[in-house]
């Protein structure tokens, strides 16, 4: 009797402990949604591989679908209140950060207890902060640059030195010469896309909103200068109209236009055109003619967010923190492999940032982007950037035909006001 009891007790203890061991050995899944297979998907897989080496019990699953679908799915799922189908980590473009954080309070986990945010580019931290709490792991930066075709400019009589410290007036002047001598337009421009307006505006420290998040349109010198400049660009005839993203990309991959002004993430696309090797150079973007204008700005860029209701929340935050906030070598690898300029400041001192890029004729382009990154003016992207953007884009075709800038600003303000409810 006693013996059977002991045996069964032993069996019970054994089975319980083995069950506990099994539970511990069972890998935990961290699911991640992001959108670009050559960029953030590949980078997240790399990060996952690094983390799994030290944490074999964690299994990183990267799900890749189109950006618009990620956003629509995230938005509808959060609205439905059913959180079980959400991932543990999701990538959100910086312009939408405040929209998600403020529209769905409590949906994302703040990481202030774990992450040392002083190590990141300040503008990236600020854009995901509400009431002193920061909800993102800052990821890639959209620091801007002016990519130019050295061969076309040379034919028009310009050297790389002529492309430094440009103003927009000087840029248009060069563009006219290039068009005259080579027949190539200076840049592709999509009149439905307010991206260039945002670049110019932020380069002078302005945005659609002031620091308090209030609408700032009619008295906004930076926006006014940006709209005036874009009007001049279109009117001068040095732009090639493009319809949509892929059409815009083809304006330079086909070798049609002489320059591209956009975020650093385009580098990979430019380098993919192998026949254009050694033909490209990189310079700072032209300066606006207003107070506080700089030659550094930002377009796009995104950050990682952890879903607060996720059962693997702690693990997800630890994963992001140990790779994205600490691993300088990781940033060197993604810079070389994917052309991703991260926003961790100490990563800039790594070896990869010092390398000369063969494609750009041996220029140390990464060092340049890193320098510009530290100069990007910090602005408040606010909650309603998409709404105002749509209002701005609606005014662009009229401006190109010589429309009045002040009237356009008034129309933008009226439309934006009614959208911000």
């Amino acid at each position: 009797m006693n013996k059977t009891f002991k045996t069964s007790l032993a069996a019970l203890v054994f089975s319980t402990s083995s069950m506990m061991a099994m539970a511990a050995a069972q890998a935990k899944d961290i699911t991640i949604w992001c959108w670009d297979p050559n960029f953030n998907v590949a980078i997240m897989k790399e990060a996952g591989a690094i983390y799994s080496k030290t944490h074999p019990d964690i299994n990183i699953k990267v799900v890749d679908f189109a950006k618009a679908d990620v956003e629509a799915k995230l938005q509808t799922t959060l609205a439905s209140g059913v959180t079980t189908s959400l991932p543990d980590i999701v990538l959100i473009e910086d312009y939408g950060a405040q929209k998600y954080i403020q529209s769905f309070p409590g949906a994302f986990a703040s990481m202030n207890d774990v992450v040392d945010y002083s190590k990141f580019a300040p503008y990236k931290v600020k854009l995901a902060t509400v009431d002193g709490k920061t909800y993102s792991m800052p990821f890639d930066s959209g620091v801007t640059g002016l990519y130019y075709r050295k061969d076309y400019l040379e034919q028009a009589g310009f050297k790389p030195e002529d492309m430094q410290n440009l103003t927009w007036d000087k840029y248009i002047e060069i563009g006219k010469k290039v068009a005259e001598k080579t027949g190539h337009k200076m840049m592709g421009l999509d009149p439905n896309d307010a991206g260039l307006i945002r670049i110019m505006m932020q380069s002078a420290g302005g945005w659609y909103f002031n620091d308090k998040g209030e609408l700032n349109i009619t008295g906004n010198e930076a926006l006014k200068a940006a709209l005036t400049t874009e009007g001049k660009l279109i009117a001068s005839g040095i732009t090639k109209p493009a319809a949509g993203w892929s059409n815009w990309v083809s304006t330079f991959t086909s070798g049609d236009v002489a320059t591209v002004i956009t975020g650093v993430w385009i580098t990979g696309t430019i380098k993919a055109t192998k026949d254009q090797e050694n033909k490209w150079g990189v310079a700072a973007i032209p300066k606006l003619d207003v107070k506080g204008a700089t030659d550094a700005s930002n377009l796009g860029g995104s950050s990682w967010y952890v879903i607060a209701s996720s059962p693997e929340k702690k693990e997800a935050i630890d994963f992001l923190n140990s790779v994205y906030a600490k691993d300088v070598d990781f940033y060197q690898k993604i810079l070389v492999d994917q052309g991703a300029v991260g926003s961790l400041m100490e990563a800039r001192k790594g070896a990869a940032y010092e390398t000369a890029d063969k494609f750009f004729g041996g220029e140390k382009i990464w060092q340049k982007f890193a320098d510009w990154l530290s100069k990007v003016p910090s602005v408040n992207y606010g909650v309603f950037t998409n709404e105002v953007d749509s209002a701005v884009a609606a005014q662009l075709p009229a401006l190109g035909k010589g429309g009045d800038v002040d009237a356009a600003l008034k129309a933008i303000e009226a439309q934006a006001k009614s959208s911000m409810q």
Partner: protein
Amino acid sequence: MASANRSLNRYFDINGWFFVAPAALLIAIFMVYPILQTLWMSFQTGKGMMTQFGGLANIKRLFDDPMFMLALYNTMIFFIVQVPVMLTLALFLAALLDNPNLKFRGVIRTAIFLPCVSSLVAYSVLFKSMFVQDGLINSTLLALHVTNQPIPWMTDPFWARVLIIIAITWRWTGYNMIFFLAALQNIDKSIYEASRIDGVPSWGRFFYLTVPMLKPVILFTTVTSTIGTLQLFDEVRNIMTSDAGSAAGPSNSALTLSVYIYNLTFKFVPSFGYAATVSYVIVLAVALLAVIQFYALREKD
């Protein structure tokens, strides 16, 4: 008395209810409930999940919203220009193809009908690549010296609307033509014989015989086309907007009510209540236009 009793019995017949119950239940869950829920939602204001009851605030917002007015204006332009053009075209094509002496009748019919089996997204993407600045259409027009400047199909507000109208007309004309063709077959041929003997010219036969006889079908195609045009979404979304672009066509010239609803829900700060209000505007517009069309094409005794 007896017949009234019988119909009442029928009303309370449990077996009858039993048969319609599954369908009725499904309709209640997937049609009636969402429609009522949307109506309730249209009185809510706020961002995302932070909603509260706002009474008539959303309706007031409609009248102060220039973007909504623009969407309504664009939708009406598409409706007023496109529906008559398409239906007239479909009617003429049907009358021509009804001629039994026409060679390759079947082939031509199929060719005109085929566009409407293509997927909306697929044909939109194809149209987009054909109509870009240096696309197939512009290079053809330039080569034929129809124009000496490429037409700014996607970068000029006027041409953007023209492009959308061309696209939906291409897609839907054949579909409506089939209804007219089917109706034409039902018209008694002896009427035409009689009129021919009376010396009515062919245009007279078309306008005074064919068109009046087709009235019910014209009404049907007008109402369905109206509904389709007011809900226009796929073409604009795929031809005129991109992930990077912020406007629906240059100066938002192709922004329709459905695209605006999409933007309000998925692109902008989610304003589900206001989006529901705008969707009820479509419902009301369709209902109103249908009533007008029924009235205009009613049987006059």
